[in-house]
């Protein structure tokens, strides 16, 4: 077993643990902190079903962003949608036998072209961050670095079209990790770069603004029903004030 395989294999376990345990812990925290008052923003749904529809529209279409900043919406949505398409394409490396729909031509082709779409979106966001004075003002180094990191992931992934690797061996390696029976990782530079950047992204996820992903679902302005007059909405700590 090569040193590269050992390092990457171990890092994969480490990053996966951080990613899943980290997000699970954040979700646990968000879910257990009370929201002591009703603060939904309009148009506030009256029912839980209404909340589900609202969140769906926010998550899938970025509805609020569409109403507030069209360019940011366009670039942001292109990037996120492309990320989803690329994720579907990559499932062929992690499923064995490959899930039937993953092997569809359209899913694979869409996943490929998504790389360009993703780059377009990310570069648009980066340009906006650099050239719009208000956005530049609020940007910390990490805001640029996260964009650059994901651009790096997209670019290195795309470059593998020209610097190919042994994808059968790669799949063996991934499946090996999943079933705890390791096999060698091809040590091609572009692949190692691509995977390394992905690992970094997984590790920083629960400690960065990437927490907006679970955060949105716990945002009281978006996930509460407007039923304040119908029933009391009292938190445990607030109830103690009543005695």
């Amino acid at each position, binding site marked *: 077993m090569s040193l590269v395989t050992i390092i990457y294999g171990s890092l994969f376990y480490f990053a996966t643990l951080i990613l899943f345990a980290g997000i699970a812990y*954040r979700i646990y*925290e*968000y879910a257990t*902190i*009370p*929201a*002591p*008052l*009703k*603060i939904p*923003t*309009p*148009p*506030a749904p*009256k029912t839980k079903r209404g909340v589900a529809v609202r969140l769906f529209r*926010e998550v899938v279409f*970025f509805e*609020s*962003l569409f*109403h*507030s*900043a069209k360019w*940011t919406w366009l670039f*942001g949505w292109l990037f996120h949608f492309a990320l989803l398409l690329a994720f579907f394409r990559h499932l062929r490396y992690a499923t064995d036998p490959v899930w039937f729909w993953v092997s569809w031509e359209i899913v694979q082709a869409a996943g490929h072209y998504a790389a360009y779409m993703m780059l377009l979106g990310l570069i648009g*966001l980066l340009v*906006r*961050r650099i050239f719009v*004075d*208000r*956005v530049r*003002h*609020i*940007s*910390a*180094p*990490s*805001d640029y*670095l996260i964009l650059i990191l994901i651009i790096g992931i997209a670019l290195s992934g795309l470059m593998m079209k020209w610097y190919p690797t042994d994808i059968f061996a790669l799949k063996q390696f991934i499946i090996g990790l999943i079933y705890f029976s390791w096999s060698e990782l091809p040590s091609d530079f572009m692949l190692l770069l691509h995977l390394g950047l992905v690992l970094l992204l997984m590790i920083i996820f629960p*400690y*960065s*603004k990437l*927490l*907006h992903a679970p*955060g*949105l679902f*716990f*945002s*009281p*302005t*978006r996930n509460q029903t*407007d039923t*304040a*007059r119908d*029933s*009391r*909405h*009292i*938190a445990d700590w*607030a109830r103690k*004030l009543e005695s």
Partner: protein
Amino acid sequence: MAVKEFEKPELKEYSDVPLLEKKATAHLAPFKSKEEFQSSLGYPGELVDNWQDAALDKMGDLLKKYRSLRVYLDSCIQCGACTDKCHYYLGTKDPSNMPVGRQNLLRSVYRRYFTLPGKYFPKLVGAVDLTKEVLDDWYSYYHQCSQCRRCAVFCPMGIDTAEISMAAREIMDSVGVGQKYCNEIIGKVHKIGNNLGLPEPALADTLEGLEEDVKDETDIDVKYPLDQKDSDILLVTPSADFFAEPHVDGLIGYGKVFHQAGLSWTLSSHASEAANFGMFIGSYANMRKLAMRIREAALDLNVKRIVFGECGHAWRVAYSFLNTLAGPFDFLDPKYPVPQHICEVTYDLIQKNVLQFDKSANDDMVVTYHDSCNVARASNMGDVIGGQFTIPRDIIKATTNHFYDMDESTIKEKTFCCGGGGGLLTDDLMELRMKGALPRMEALKRVVDDYGVTHMAAICAICKSQFSKALGYYGFEIDQIISLHQLVGNALIMNKKEL
């Protein structure tokens, strides 16, 4: 107090987003609360010695009590979608008045002390130490937020800057740095019963005067009862309604509606204030204490319903929080929501044909409507989605012949705050108030130019007071702001029926 000299913003035909000017309004900060007012609310009288630790402890405490605070500090992607949405940014050009800029003042400290990357790589993630300079910035800029929630509507994560500025104010209060205007007023409500410190005899006298005025005008005995036990309705209204212009014309209107509908109602000297400044300072305990007066008054006067007068933040606390803070209200008539807005009452009576209007009585006015921020974005009316937008407009349309809305991007859930909300309606923040009124004044100017609008109706005591100043400042007439129930009172056809 005269308005201090500062550069007057120009009213443009088309609003644009200004280039930022760093620290443009860093010099603006309200007067600090004195020891006596701090201690009456349970806060230290001056900055405590170990204030850094105390402030961080308080932040940690609030992070465990308010999901909004925690999730919103974590979830901002710094996308900038909110940066051109705040009226204070548009009016002052100060980037710390961009919603995200304002949030980052607290977020950078949160990151430094409560997150792993902030502890080890502060520069990388924009984390900063909690220094005296940071505290001063908090004091300035968290008192340049009117908690109007316009940013929250536009944020892709729903981040509500009001939640963050409330938390910041509570942290500052807890280390002894409070705002004079809010804390003094809360003290007055606890002691006397209303924001203006109007005692019961003065209140009774004022209401008697009102009855005489209405009698002179209409030759009808419309009553404005105080502390009348066993009335059906307890009306809780902002104390400005008792004598400020144009507020009092609204109160006259409510009385006429109740009279014409034959409803028995009363005001309460114990709960002679609808506004709840406990919300402005982010203090659940103070907010609850203030809300309890209303419950006590309702029990004491043995009423069946509670109705709120025209007041924006009051209606937020009433609609969204009152049941939680001071409920359950199971001793009231279950046929009616608790509480109700005066507009809901009037609207229902119009639907039932109980009220008839002579619209021509308002023909000297071409009216537009200002959606008050807290009514628009933090409450509802009539239990249909968007009722808080349609009900006031339907009442205006039922009582006037000439109504025009302002630009769609400045009304309803996108409405601009008047510039004086959230505990900022104080003379020591006049520069901020006038600059913050700019977006609304620009939108008003457009309908004045395009449709000949002469008057703007509102249903919030703060809006009315603030616009009385801002209209004059921007070259309009100060009496162009009116109470919605002034229109109702003007047009209502009254007959002499005895109760």
